């Protein structure tokens, strides 16, 4: 993976596969604390403590059908966070969901760029119409806090039965995310 937003996409796909109906994504860029924090919270099937530990092992996968037992998504994300003096935490409760918190040291030379957050979120939202996404981007810089909030449940309600892949809807979501990312200075992190 070349950037953090690709890891984020991978983690969102994990939540979808865990049958989440609601996924909350938080990206907090806090210049005062020199920290970039990603939080993904879902209401999927969750994991017991043994599975949480195993999920961080590259030679574990929950995919039964797979012949070669590898699962690199979580271990690689963890490794990339730790390489930049960050940390990776996963908490879960079977039947309730999973929360993943990943911190990066903002100015660390080895920190991967945030990358194309817009295309990650756009693809996830439109590619999983059955899931409601609650997205919050926040930047704290020079004593000022700027936030962007995007809730797909309200959008779907307003659209009635019109699919998210309807051309004007794609443009609407794309443009909304673009503005939100600009307003929170997340386009070049």
């Amino acid at each position, binding site marked *: *993976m070349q950037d953090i937003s*690709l890891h984020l*996409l*991978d983690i969102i*796909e994990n939540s*979808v*596969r865990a049958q989440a109906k609601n996924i909350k994504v938080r990206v907090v860029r806090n210049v005062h604390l020199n920290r970039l924090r990603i939080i993904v919270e879902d209401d999927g099937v969750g994991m017991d403590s043994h599975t949480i530990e195993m999920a961080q092992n590259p030679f574990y996968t929950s*995919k039964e*059908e*797979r*012949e070669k037992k590898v*699962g*690199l*998504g979580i271990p*690689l994300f963890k490794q990339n966070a730790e390489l930049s003096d960050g940390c990776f935490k996963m908490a879960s409760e079977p039947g309730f969901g999973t929360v993943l918190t990943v911190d990066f040291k903002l100015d660390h030379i080895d920190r991967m760029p945030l990358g*194309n957050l817009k*295309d*990650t979120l*756009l*693809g*996830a939202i*439109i*590619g*999983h*119409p059955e899931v409601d996404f609650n997205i919050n981007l926040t930047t704290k810089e020079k004593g000022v806090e700027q936030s962007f909030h995007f809730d797909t449940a*309200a*959008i779907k309600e*307003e*659209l*009635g*039965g*019109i*699919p998210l*892949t*309807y*051309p*004007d*809807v*794609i*443009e*609407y979501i*794309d*443009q*909304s995310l673009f*503005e939100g990312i600009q307003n929170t200075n997340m386009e070049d992190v």
Partner: protein
Amino acid sequence: MKTLADLKKIREKAQEEMKLRGGNTRIKIVVGMGTSGIAMGAREVMKTFLEEIANRNLTDVLVTQTGEKGLSSMEPVVDLIEEGKPKVTYGNMTPEKVKKVVVEHIVNGRTVSDYVVATGN
């Protein structure tokens, strides 16, 4: 700034269109979004499909994402599913190949055999 009022206009427009042609989905596009697919560029493939749908105003196409299905060496992988036809799986996709598949397969109804890695179920 985009507001929910914009969505209301979109809904009215879309509902008018559906009255005219019926609300059926003609083709379903499924983009493989597993770890290996993402690492090989599946996000850009997804984005290009969405861009093409918006630019060409394709209203009878649906795009979804799915996990990987054991074709890791051919990622990014995309399935095109049409009612009454065998499923077509395209492999090693790039944004350029996506554009060709949209024109040839989705608009003109001709499979791009050079990019096909599997057909049927």
